[in-house]
């Protein structure tokens, strides 16, 4: 029994390294998507202290808008630009209609507001674009090929590469531009940021727009794999353990956390799944998060213990 749990899986891994590599890679790719969703959370949380319950629905809404436009005959590139424009407009609207009136309210009140927002967005998306499952095909090649015996898929590589590019661009943007400095200032100390004249409104619009665009990328990847439908918004539930792992205020944490959970749950599923009757993938992330809550509540890179939620 103990042998089956503690030793046999590792022997399996060592016995077939190629297969193990494939498992890890497929886990990494899922992880990229978790990371992206978590990244959206972190950006908004850092800049406005809002735990954005609607992040998952924003992913859905972005993907729905893209598919909806394409179904109406808009070419892919234009549909992408329009969707980015829609997500930016949405950020403006959220600041204008919601955030502006809730400045200085308790975190929990803002959290409630984002729950409301998620319903509004979901309703809006389905009213505009319909609620049937949609196929998303943005023309990314989907052939498989082998390198050193490892089976790879073009789409997956493309997805991973765009995720990496996006994250790098964001990292550079937030670290080397003055908007980035302003954003870090806001995240660090609201009051001091106000006193040096940083316009909070603009910062909020920027982070919500960026979160919307990050959501769009996540939505495209996920949607192209398994269709655009309501369940897309549920990947946000996976982002929660990622956040606990990575820390609510850490961008690198969100990325690394997402990858760890993506790989962890795949590996656990394949090698330990049969021992417990499968379905490890559905709860692995939460177990890991729980362990973290007990032993390292600030997460891998978190700056402080969660206090705002």
């Amino acid at each position: 029994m103990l042998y089956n749990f503690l030793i046999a899986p590792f022997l399996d891994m060592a016995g077939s390294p190629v297969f193990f590599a494939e498992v890890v890679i497929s886990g990494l790719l899922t992880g990229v998507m978790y990371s992206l969703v978590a990244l959206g959370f972190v950006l908004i949380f850092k800049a406005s202290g809002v735990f954005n319950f609607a992040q998952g629905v924003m992913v859905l809404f972005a993907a729905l808008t893209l598919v909806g436009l394409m179904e109406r005959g808009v070419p892919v590139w234009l549909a992408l630009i329009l969707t980015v424009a829609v997500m930016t407009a949405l950020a403006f609207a959220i600041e204008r209609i919601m955030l502006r009136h809730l400045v200085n309210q308790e975190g929990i009140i803002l959290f409630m507001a984002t729950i409301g927002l998620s319903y509004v967005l979901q309703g809006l998306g389905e009213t505009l674009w319909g609620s049937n499952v949609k196929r998303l095909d943005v023309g990314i090649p989907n052939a498989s090929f082998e390198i050193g015996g490892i089976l790879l898929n073009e789409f997956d590589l493309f997805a991973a590469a765009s995720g990496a590019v996006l994250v790098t661009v964001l990292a550079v943007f937030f670290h080397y531009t003055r908007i980035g400095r302003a954003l870090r200032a806001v995240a660090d100390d609201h009051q001091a940021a106000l006193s040096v004249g940083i316009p909070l409104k603009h910062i909020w619009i920027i982070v919500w727009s960026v979160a919307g665009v990050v959501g769009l990328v996540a939505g495209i990847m996920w949607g192209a794999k398994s269709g655009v439908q309501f369940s897309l918004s549920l990947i946000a539930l996976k982002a929660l353990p990622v956040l606990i792992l990575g820390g609510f205020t850490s961008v690198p944490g969100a990325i690394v956390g997402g990858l760890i959970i993506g790989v962890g749950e795949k590996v656990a599923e394949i090698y330990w799944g049969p021992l417990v009757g499968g379905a490890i993938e559905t709860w692995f992330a939460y177990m890991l998060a729980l362990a973290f809550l007990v032993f390292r509540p600030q997460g891998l890179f978190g700056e402080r213990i969660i206090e705002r939620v």
Partner: protein
Amino acid sequence: MTQARERIGDTLLALENVNLAFGGVRALSDVSFEIREHEILAIIGPNGAGKSSMLNVINGFYHPQEGAITYKGKKRKQMRPHEAAATGIARTFQNIALFRGMSTLDNIMTGRLLKMRRNFLWQALYWGPAVREEMEHREAAERIIDFLEIQSIRKTPVGRLPYGLQKRVELGRALAAEPDLLLLDEPMAGMNVEEKEDMCRFILDVSDEFGTTIALIEHDMGVVMDISDRVVVLDYGRKIADGTPDEVRGNAAVIDAYLGVSH
């Protein structure tokens, strides 16, 4: 000090009958006073007198229920923080509010944000000129670092600095905005004698060299008498005295307030 005193000019900011309450607590009752160009004004008073609230009203963190604020000739009911900063009001806080994760230099650069190109949303798309502009501001920040003698901690994350140096960096960030009106909330609290002397020197130098108008809150009477041109005394949210250090020192109401005579 002397130079600044000679240069004292017109009213820069005037408060008229300001009333501020938090629920049942009256933080400011009917307070009126003015700050004149180039002067160093000290605001003193026992704990809870409403001194910090006063500064918060001036830079728009608190919005008084009644009263008017006239700043640079424009009268309004309340200030807004962004407006205050944009029109030349910079400040420091009683409980240091620095960007703790950032270096000294970055903190001071943040103070220059408003000096940078106005349209905030578009800056990101503007690479070439933005980089050149960044260099200019960098030089200005370095001048402030030299002025405050904090070259050696330029790259240190401010969260790791000792208290006295943090206060100095916070002053640097405020100065970086090249303010017309500088508000300092207990800039010397918790400092040792030597650090206090340094801070006094910086404040006087700022006044002399840049002509900045300064309003500061301070508990150390020695310091107040030394560096200020005028003193406003608050007690239980009311102004009980307003005059030169000598006038205030001899004022009976002030002596009562400080000796804790019952009201």
